[in-house]
């Protein structure tokens, strides 16, 4: 199963590149948040890569909110590994966990931005 997931990640990393992800941002603050969440969820690979992409996006003026949803979604969601998660934990658990994680990602980023404003 892990071999299959890694195989699929190999293909994803070939076809979904960092440059391609960068072009999806910059249309509006709201779309950046949605794009950040889904781009993070479909991406795969070491979490450090998400920070490198985020740094590049930051210089393009993408909001902190969108950047944090992107990084969070990258490490907590994984569309590529969904079949593996279903086969191990079952469809019910996987569905609940991924829906909750998707919502949590957006809420956590929002709360973090709002709370930071109180201190900075």
């Amino acid at each position, binding site marked *: *199963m*892990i*071999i*299959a*997931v*890694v*195989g*699929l*990640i*190999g*293909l994803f*990393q*070939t*076809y979904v590149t960092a440059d391609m992800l960068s072009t999806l941002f910059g249309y509006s603050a709201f779309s950046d948040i949605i794009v950040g969440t889904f781009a993070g969820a479909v991406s795969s*690979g070491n*979490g*450090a890569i998400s*920070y490198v992409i*985020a*740094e590049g996006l*930051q210089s393009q003026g993408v909001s*902190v909110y969108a*950047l*944090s949803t992107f*990084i*969070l979604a990258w*490490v*907590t969601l*994984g569309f590529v*590994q969904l*079949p*593996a*998660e279903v*086969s*191990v*934990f079952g469809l*019910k*658990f996987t569905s*609940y*966990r991924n829906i*909750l*994680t998707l919502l*949590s990602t957006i*809420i*956590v*980023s929002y*709360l*973090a*931005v709002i*709370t*930071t404003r109180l*201190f*900075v």
Partner: protein
Amino acid sequence: MKKLEFKGVKFLIFVVTLYALLSIIDFANSLLGFQKFLYILWGLLPIFLFIIILTTMINYFLKPKQIMKYFGEDSGKKGLIYTIIGGILSHGPMYAWYGMLDDMRKHGLKDGLIASFIYARAVKLPLLPFMIDIFGIVFTVIINIYIIIFAVLQGKLIDMLMKK
């Protein structure tokens, strides 16, 4: 004798078929994808080794009754704290941990704790300097506190939803 169980055979067949089809349509990229696959797999070997040793140690030292005690229905706050710390300290991709979690689940690990473990992995200790560099220290501290709070909440919600 216990029969060996291979999970995800159909998924593996699907991925192999996908590579085969892509090699006909787009040979250069399918080869690049395969090279990336080998590279990732090579990089994962030390993590797999660590997880295999950890699973063996858990199976040896923690009997099913103890797993139930520490991570089962009545594990309480202690189980949650151990799980969150485990999630924060765990390395490597999520799917590398599925086998160990599945093994512990069969011995009584709560579904809520699995969800908490997975979400707590969003706190990436080695990557904190990168995060501070991009977002600043205040945001980094705040978001990581929220991640831990939501890891706990998510665990509770999963337990509630799975009981339905």
